[in-house]
């Protein structure tokens, strides 16, 4: 029974392989794009080059190397739910930790750190 299941699943999940080498080439090209983009001084370009490209790369790996799209539906959903919880965590924590001031409180120490830090070395791309 077991072996049947194995074969059945595995064949079912790899009816036609994507050309892995081609995918790899695209990934490397994207890597180059992100590095080059980061060299350009423009903030927007850097952010897109950094994170936009990262998202695309992650998707390509997940789709073509992990075959997550041909896997049983609940696996990708499981991962999306985990990510959703991380978003909830961010939403709940950021108002206290990311911000340094709020209603009736102010994080003097953090403000102080930012202030002195910026004076010490003003970052290039700010």
């Amino acid at each position, binding site marked *: 029974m077991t072996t049947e299941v194995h074969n059945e699943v595995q064949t079912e999940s790899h009816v036609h392989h994507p050309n892995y080498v081609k995918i790899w080439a695209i990934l490397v090209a994207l890597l180059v794009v992100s590095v080059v983009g980061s060299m350009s001084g423009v903030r927007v370009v850097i952010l897109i080059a950094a994170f936009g490209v990262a998202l695309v790369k992650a998707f390509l790996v997940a789709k073509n190397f992990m075959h997550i799209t041909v896997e049983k539906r609940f696996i990708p959903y499981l991962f999306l*739910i*985990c990510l959703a*919880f*991380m978003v*909830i*965590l961010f939403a*709940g*924590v950021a*108002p*206290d*930790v990311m*911000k340094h001031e*709020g*209603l*009736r*409180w102010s*994080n003097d*120490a*953090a403000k102080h*750190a930012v202030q002195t830090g910026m004076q010490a070395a003003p970052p290039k791309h700010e």
Partner: protein
Amino acid sequence: MSTQVQHAEPGVFKKYFWSTDHKIIAMQYLFTGMAMGLIGGYLAYVFRMQLGFPNQSVPGFGIVTPGKYNAVVTMHGSIMIFWVAMPVLIAAFGNFLIPLMIGCDDMAFPRINRLSYQVFLLSALLLLSSFLVKGGAFGGAWTSYPPLSANGAYNLTPIGATLWLLAVALEFVAFLLGGINFTVTVMNSRAPGMKMFDIPFVIWMIVLASVVFMASVGPLIAGAVMLLFDQTMSTGFYDPNRGGDPLLWQHLFWFFGHPEVYVVLLPAMGIVAEIIAVFARKKLFGYKTILYTAWSVGVLSFVVWAHHQFVAGIDPRMANIFSITTLLISIPIAEMVFLYIATLYGGSIRLTTAMLFALAFVAEFMIGGVTGIFLGASGVDIYLHDTYFVIAHFHYTFVPIAIISVFAGIYFWFPKMFGRMMNETLGKIHFWGTVIPFNFIFIPLFMTGAAGDQRRVYSYAQFAEQARPALQHLRTTATVSLLVMLAFQFVFIFNFIWSLRNGKRAGANPWRSTTLEWTVPSPPPHGNFAELPTVYRGPYEYGWPGRADDYWPQDVPD
């Protein structure tokens, strides 16, 4: 038990300590958990004595200094949650019941299962060792808030704090291994014919708990690494003067810590459901509805965490959101309890010891549930936060969960585990001797809490309002009740050991129950089933009209 067996000759060692059999591993978890439970009870005895009879030498401990008091309360909390509730409710019952109830021979990954227990045992030993190190055990409360926990100069127990953190982290690893194993086993290894809604409720709950644990603990594992670096490598993750933020730990801790409450609640609910169904001879009232409410509890538990932090310095506007979600979660829980009560309707209730404990769980948990509303309502929580009202509230949930439901489960499955019945008379004595004093411990604490007694204080001599004799009488009452309750636990221990040898022999199915674990001999042989069963119907088919028996086992064809 396992720890003693280690020293025996290799044969026994291999059988009882190195085994990959889920039943042996379940026993290892059960006995380790019970041993830790005794330690936790002893710690409770120590600090209750100090509170009831301040500054007198406690028999079996000595004078309770402020530092020792902090260590004792911290360890009591940590042990009872992480080393009693989790291993017994999830790991012990999960390991024992899952393969038997879903009709397969073992866990899907027996060696991972064994590893999980060994990591857990290591974590327990690590925690206990912290009592012996220089400076003593960690005393910064089971929540371990930095900067107190991060800086030895503040907590004065530098080694203890690090040992505590390592022990907790290892414990998380153990339950990740175990929980994932449980989940995979139930998803993949069920008996042919056992569909989603034919799975016994307790199995559902253990799996749901494992998943909730798995999804909530991650950020805290990361946070624990950060705290470890703060302690040992002088980083400043939680140090406000070095760009860190103490509030961050509180958020990470409670993002796990609140789901954790439901991680232990749900298996307890499951155990109680099984027992009520069997002894009321009734199908669970609205099996699917209970399941849906349990799922919604699991999901909602991820969006309520900051109600532990209303006055902790979070932005007050956030408190409103978490206050609403907190009262939302009361709805599915309330519905679950209603459904349990409704299950009794039209039944034929046999009040065995197991059933008494199961019913006591429902009755007592309701009190714990409703008192939670006071604390979820942000306005009132301003006053009640960190008072004994909170302590009484969560003990009215945790004692039913970790003590009462566990006793119910042990009395119920003891025949299956060891092939003999426990003594019912002693059982009933133990029941009344546990449940009545329990209420007399915590009802007085609701009152002292309402009077403003703050938590984690070794003596109220400094506080004129708290030093009133009236309140001291209440504290003494609670302490005396605790002594009574602890005394009656020896009845259980005696009953347990006595029944192992002299209990009435139990047949395969002494309770005339329907689920699969009762179709195998007691105790089940290695490999459980002579031939693996096939499932034809849901788990709670009692009182079918026009059948000779009032129960219809899952594996019997029509």
